[in-house]
């Protein structure tokens, strides 16, 4: 998205200094997606395209309700459909609106090497500042949910902005506005958690014993949450990770190793410099030349007939 809120950053990619954060009293926001109320109409997908002016290329029908087949640089949200046969042998059509989860501890931001290309605002939204993106794809490796997609035309990474431009001026995201069943809600994160709790009580009363809220603590919670009828098995919903976390490989690569490696290289160079000023250059002396000439003469004499 655009760089419109530049004074309320709580995190900024590839930055070792405190980001500008004077405007930091905003409420933490969240989008709540009540999967149990979703009818799979894709109004949210259409609204996302409409508001953000996204026009993905027309693809091919692959025998699934999923259309298009995957998230893309111009597909920031996607309805995913799974047919699940429950323990009673009944069919359940589990439909989940997929997209960026806006993690409180974003793996994309941790992995990003371009200063300021990924930011997190005080309200919790994780946003890509596209003109600073270098197209390396590190965010793809950092993301626990397989969300960012790199464009083949402009080599920039894209994903849901949580309509940060709308939220800034007090509007709800476009998908929320368009949802005809009220399955997508938006507001303060605490309000959304209360809303979810009420709905979960309702769902449990109606036989979904494992109904619950998906707000995974492994990434310190998310600013997009789901109400799931089967919160004990999130992976039923087209591969929603049961325990999403920033890969330990990414943690190793982007953790202490990074500053230590830079320090070690600097120390090697400083060490070399001090070797130079203490022990100094290893020169070839006139005596070396004399020795060499002597050996050459002796060899010539030996070889002479």
């Amino acid at each position, binding site marked *: 998205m655009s760089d419109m809120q530049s004074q309320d950053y709580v995190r900024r990619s590839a930055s070792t200094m405190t980001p500008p954060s004077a405007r930091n009293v905003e409420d933490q926001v969240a989008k709540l997606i009540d999967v149990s109320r979703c009818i799979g109409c894709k109004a949210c997908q259409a609204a996302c395209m409409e508001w953000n002016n996204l026009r993905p290329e027309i693809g091919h029908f692959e025998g699934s309700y999923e259309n298009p087949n995957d998230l893309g640089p111009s597909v920031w949200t996607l309805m995913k459909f799974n047919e699940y046969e429950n323990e009673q042998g009944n069919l359940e059509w589990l439909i989940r609106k997929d997209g960026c989860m806006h993690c409180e501890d974003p793996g994309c931001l941790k992995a990003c090497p371009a200063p300021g290309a990924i930011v997190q605002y005080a309200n919790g939204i994780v946003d890509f500042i596209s003109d600073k993106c270098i197209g390396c794809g590190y965010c793809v490796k950092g993301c626990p949910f397989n969300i960012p997609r790199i464009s083949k035309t402009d080599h920039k990474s894209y994903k849901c902005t949580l309509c940060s431009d709308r939220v800034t001026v007090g509007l709800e995201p476009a998908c929320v506005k368009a949802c005809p069943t009220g399955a997508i809600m938006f507001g303060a994160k605490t309000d959304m958690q209360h809303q979810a709790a009420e709905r979960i009580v309702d769902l449990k009363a109606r036989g979904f014993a494992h109904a619950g809220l998906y707000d995974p603590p492994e990434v310190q919670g998310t600013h997009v949450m789901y109400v799931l009828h089967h919160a004990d098995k999130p992976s039923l919903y087209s591969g929603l990770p049961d325990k999403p976390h920033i890969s330990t490989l990414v943690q190793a690569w982007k953790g202490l190793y990074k500053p230590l490696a830079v320090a070690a290289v600097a120390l090697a160079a400083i060490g070399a410099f001090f070797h130079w000023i203490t022990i100094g250059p290893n020169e070839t002396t006139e005596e070396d030349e004399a020795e060499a000439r002597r050996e*050459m003469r002796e060899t010539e004499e030996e070889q002479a007939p």
Partner: protein
Amino acid sequence: MTRPANTITRYTTVNRINHWINAGLFILLLVSGLSMFHPILFWLSGLFGGGQWARAAHPWLGICLMVSWVGMIIQFWRENLPNRDDVAWSKAITHVVRNDDGHVPPIGRNNPGQKLVFWSMTFLIPVLLFSGLLAWEVYFGKATSIEVQRVAILVHSLCAFAAVLVFVVHVYAAIWISGSVRSMTQGYVTPGWAWHHHRKWFRELIAHRKQP
């Protein structure tokens, strides 16, 4: 170039051209790679015209380095094979670093330090190329799973770190041993240099020298 009489050719013209192509590519890779490694070095990407350019150029430079390094392997593998003298020389490493060359046993054309540089790079450059290809978003972003790419990028950064350390040692050693830089720029060393630093090589050369 003006070359004094009685000097010894250490690196041929082809050796030198290949080496400096290599050196140029390595430095460009180092600069663009470091810019993507740690934020305090991101400014280095400005030398390429910005982060996008550094990101785009880096893999192509890597492919060029691999080709160039194959040239180095072909020219230098034989003289970098380990031999018995290496053990004695390595045991005297504390004398080597103190310029106490009276206590360093004579060595052939290359010493173990030089061989270590050669074999480290011969191992690291192909690993860097392969792991780099797996992480090359533009062409191979969808070729492997994200998990494979995570392993690849970690291996890539570890190997790059090792290669940078080898590079620092190599550059400093060339500055430290006076006359080395000239051997790689102008190609020759004096007999005294060869006698001092690579005595066995010097003796081989004079033993097989054709009578003028």
